[in-house]
């Protein structure tokens, strides 16, 4: 059965790109526009992995990671955060909150797939 990955980003273009890349690679994809949307969708449908932006309105990536880690169905799933070069402190904050890994923007499709494969096994 194909694994389901949730992509969370307030930027529609990045969401679309991530989603497209993952779907092409054979994954199921659920999209969410921000942490709040994601947390609501996570309750309804199980996912195998989350890829989330950090800077988002309503509920940011760090809060989403904390939310996921404190709820049984998502407690142990891999969570990848999308960061930029200049966000070193955000990265460690995300790591503290329970993120599995990160991808530095801008990234290529191949990089994204490599990381997904790495953490999803």
């Amino acid at each position, binding site marked *: 059965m194909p694994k389901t990955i949730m992509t969370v980003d307030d930027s529609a273009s990045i969401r679309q790109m991530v989603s497209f890349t993952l779907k092409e690679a054979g994954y199921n994809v659920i999209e969410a526009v921000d942490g709040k949307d994601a947390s609501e969708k996570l309750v309804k449908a199980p996912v195998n992995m989350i890829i989330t932006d950090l800077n988002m309105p309503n509920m940011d990536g760090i809060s989403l990671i904390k939310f996921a880690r404190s709820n049984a169905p998502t407690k142990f799933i891999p969570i990848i955060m999308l960061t930029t070069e200049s966000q070193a402190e955000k990265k460690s904050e995300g*790591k503290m909150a329970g993120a599995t*890994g990160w991808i530095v923007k801008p990234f290529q*499709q191949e990089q994204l797939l490599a990381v997904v494969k790495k953490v999803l096994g």
Partner: protein
Amino acid sequence: MKDKHIETFKQEAFELLEVLEASLMELESAPDNEELIGQVFRSLHTIKGGGGMFGFDAVAAFVHNIETVYDKIRNNEISVTDSIIDFTLKAKDQIYEMIRSEKKDIESDSETQEILNFFKNYLGTINTATENKPQEQNNVEDNNGQIIVYHIYFEPFEDLFLKGTRPTGLLSEIAGLGTSIILPNIDRIPFLNEINPETFYTSWDIFLSTDKDINTIKDVFIFVEDDCKLRIDKEDTGELKGDAEYYKALLEKKNSDSITKDHSQDIKLNKPGIQNKSKKDKQHNEKESSSSIRVSSDKLDLLVNLVGELVTVQARLAQTATTSQVPELVSISEDVERLTWELRENALNIRMLPIGSTFNKFNRLVRDLSKELGKEVELVTDGGETELDKNVIEKLNDPLVHIIRNSIDHGIELPEKRLEKNKDRCGKVYLSAMHSGTHVIIEIKDDGAGLNKKGILDKAIEKGIITSDAELSDKEIFSLIFHAGFSTAKKVTNVSGRGVGMDVVKNAIESLRGIIEVESKEGEWTKIILKLPLTLAIIEGLIVRIDKECFVIPLSFVEECIELTSAKKEETNGRNILNVRSEIIPYIPLRDKFDLKENMPEIEQVVIIKDSNLKAGLVVDEIIGEHQTVIKSLGKYYKNVEVMSGATVLGDGTVALIIDIPKMLSEEIKLEEKQYHKSI
């Protein structure tokens, strides 16, 4: 495949730039508002991120410095100044251009450089340390073909599972780099009754023989380096020297030799502390955003069109059902009617947008214009939540721009002049919208010099629009400014007076079936009033019949209906006026006007209509009733027909013409004036 996403990115970026501009304008008056600063930062951040992703490297590079400045503002290292906002607004225009034209490189023109230098200087004077952190080394390098045996010690912390990491994945990744022997240490695993399934107990010693360098191995552990004890040592060269037993023995020997050495070589044990709590709290307070999807407006137009057709067919069904008197059919017909009505309301509602977004655009216009003209002007908006059909809003933009330009250019005086007149230095332009029945009223008022009646009259006479002996009311004088070719500006400025006059504005508003009026008090204020229909697609109409023809009168103009007996007609000696509760109202016999002579009924009906302050009666044979009218244009062959604004299909399939009330009244007034002049 990238191209596919570029369009999405562009559209998104343009929207973000709008948000950016609006936030900046607000920030100007509230420079400490953290929410606004956050919004500006996020807009820039997303544009930069997307720019990098979709090949807009120039945009990403350009935005980078600006974003950094706002990050510092966010962290209270810099405070917002007018010049920062000024330059960010300029930058916004540049970014827009760069994205629109898909520029690959940053322009070397003076303006771009000026903006870049401004923000760079800002960073320079405060702190240069944070710029350009070196990127993580991801290069895979060989050891020049040399094969090395590494000893890797990997001990994840107990909470590894809570980071979503699968250690077995890491091990197989390591195994994929060469030949390896992996030795687990299971000493820490407690008895079954003490095991916490969420806790991690195992560690590994790995001997790996590979031609890859140490960085490649470190890369495998890149995500867990903060969550484990990791040691990578060069053990030997060449292939592995023996089997698992051999290396187990080697390990035991090593451990007994050097226990003390271990700790000094641990890589990064310290976890960074939690920072910026306040920042997170702030983001929780952000406004709720409703989730939405994008649909092209063509699809919406089609939907509304289809709903329009459905309304027509439903009317036919209702009519057939009523005549058939089959109870079941009537009941079905009523259900369809209810559903159609709901569908119509919803379909039209989808196209309704608050006019506020259009209003916000004008902040920038007012700001730039007033600076250019050396005036101080403040834009005050009200009723931005008022909803109007998307098509109406779009077509309203240009006329509004023109009116506001006029207000600032011709209306608002220079600050010194205003002080002389005991006015506030800073002029005000009020822009407001409100609902009024099936219409929306938009008012643009400025507290400037007002309209100069004499100036207008002189000009109108000079241009031959009126004769010098004409006696005009104030309202008529003011409305002269809408006459084609009328412009009182003494010189052609960059702002208004480009040959496009208020007549263009008037035509634009009338093409939206709207009405434009002007009021003014000399020396004090000018007010332009636009009255617009909520939607262009469907109107409520009153169906009337003359002989065998049906006509539709837009219900918004209808005041009341009364009977016209031949006795009443004789009372006024054929002068076509009525006395309605002691009010004298002229009427237009539509039979004469449309040249329909047959089957004159005994008692005729008068529909009293009101347009602005003008009341009149339209005489018809019979009033049939209210009808939801889907407006169809008459087509190009009839485009010159003035008194009909369109046509509609009635329930029984016949076509009824829709009467354009304002046009008909003004035409009638013209006719009347001509006859009056003739009679003198």
